[in-house]
């Protein structure tokens, strides 16, 4: 008997068969792109306006690495990472779960010559693409508002794709474990919301108590913020390699776990 199927922890077997699955999602999305765009960028912009201009008037400037930056820039450069996280997470949880469990789209696909591993890869890349799309739209608005004109935003763009990949891999673990949509609430309340407040999006992490800070420094969202924020300020990130490595480790480990749990879910 084939060991490949027996061992859910076997290495991913990936091929270009993910592409037609990705295209399927792209075709659905093309039909709904404009309304989904409004939904994707309206909320982050409300945060930005309410907190950035409202709170920013009270806070004034934030001290960052010896430099004073306007709060709106501080917030914008952090919240765009949050937007990438949220966009990837929603797609890899709710939408992927609909396709996997409710519509049984994955079952249909696997009657064609496409392996489960490639379906999971396609969903992962798709959620990351959605994140990239959302982030691009928000970057456009931020440029329009004149929040940052740093040429290094061109580098922030692929970095944010990486952030999307990390969080879509993580979300797929919970997708694989879910019995219903309600389950995802745990992921949001127990993981994402605390992370949102600990990763230096709304205030610098050095405000945190030392113990909390020590943990917070290694969170994937912290790594994302530490990579992206300097680029908004036309500076290169410090310890860029370390942050990139944190994202990479979270991505690879999460994808592997997500794949193993999905294989277990589909194993008869």
């Amino acid at each position: 008997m084939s060991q490949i199927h027996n061992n859910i922890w076997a290495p991913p077997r990936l091929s270009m068969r993910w592409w037609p699955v990705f295209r399927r999602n792209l075709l659905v999305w093309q039909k709904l792109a404009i309304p989904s765009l409004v939904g994707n960028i309206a909320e982050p912009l409300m945060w930005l306006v309410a907190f950035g201009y409202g709170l920013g008037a009270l806070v004034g400037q934030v001290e960052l690495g010896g430099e004073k930056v306007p709060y709106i820039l501080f917030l914008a450069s952090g919240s765009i990472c949050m937007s990438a996280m949220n966009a990837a997470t929603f797609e890899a949880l709710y939408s992927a779960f609909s396709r996997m469990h409710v519509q049984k789209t994955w079952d249909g696909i696997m009657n064609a010559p496409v392996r489960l591993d490639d379906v999971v890869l396609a969903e992962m890349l798709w959620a990351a693409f959605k994140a990239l799309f959302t982030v691009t739209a928000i970057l456009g608005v931020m440029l329009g508002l004149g929040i940052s004109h740093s040429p290094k935003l061109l580098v922030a763009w692929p970095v944010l794709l990486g952030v999307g990949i990390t969080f879509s891999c993580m979300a797929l673990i919970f997708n694989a474990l879910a019995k219903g949509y309600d389950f995802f609430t745990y992921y949001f309340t127990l993981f994402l919301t605390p992370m949102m407040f600990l990763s230096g999006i709304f205030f610098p992490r050095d405000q945190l108590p030392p113990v909390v800070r020590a943990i917070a420094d290694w969170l994937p969202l912290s790594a994302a913020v530490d990579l992206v924020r300097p680029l908004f300020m036309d500076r290169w990130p410090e310890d860029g390699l370390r942050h990139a490595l944190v994202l990479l480790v979270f991505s690879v480990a999460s994808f592997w776990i997500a794949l193993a749990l999905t294989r277990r879910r589909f194993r008869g």
Partner: protein
Amino acid sequence: MTTPLLSVEHLVKRYGDQTVVNDLSFHIEPGECLGVIGPNGAGKTTTIRMCLGLSEPDGGSVGYFDGLAMPRDALAIKAQLGVVAQMDTLDPDFTAAENLLVFGRYFGLPDRVIRDRIPQLLEFAALTHKGSAKPGQLSGGMKRRLSLARALINQPRLLLLDEPTTGLDPQARHLMWERLQLLLQERKSILLTTHFMDEAERLCDRLLVLDHGRKIAEGRPRDLIAQHLEPDVVEVYGQGATALAHEATLQSLAERTEVSGETVFFYTRASQPLLTALQTWPQLRTLHRPSNLEDLFLKLTGRQIREEG
């Protein structure tokens, strides 16, 4: 002798202590329609899942075409297979035509080739005018026919159909049968599981009867009936009918007597003397008919209701 398209050898599947498929062997010849029938929980769907490589067998082997083995060659096999699952997996966001296009892409077919095939497939499914309708706007029968058309997009050598007409009304079921008969006339090969004995009798060249994961009979529908049953059945029902099962005269005129609910079934080779004798009870209603596949099925698998398996 031709090589079988599908050859299942000594297949075994266990869930915990329970053996749901037990030493099952069968094969499908080119151009043949093989029906798999059995009560709920007999192991039909588990068998199909193992044939599709979706479930790992605990023993035995599943071979296809020219020396391909599941699950080793899963992708090469699926490239030549058409599958209609029990549950529709059509994409609700796509039109009927888009459903075919997107599914064809999973096989690596170029869009040009798929677009050439779509009109014929829609016509085959009697959905030519529904090409731009979404599954939500289609009836149950239309959706099943679209699923069948979708399974044909790669021009498969073998079709696996898991209960293709369950839940359809008689009109939709007859239309589905017509389409399947067209495929059989084109010498397509089909593996079909079904609950409907008339469907099995109408479509299948050969039948496999499963119960408790084992093969309990195999053969042509007519041969199976002749082999296991008396040619005639007389059903008697009405007030006090069940008492007739113990009537010595009647018992001697029937080869076999069965009671189910309020009805007595007399299986006989000579129905006339039995019918004459039954005139003694004019208040009872009788139904005289040739024995059929349903009688065979009930004889082999029993009349008691099975828990959903």
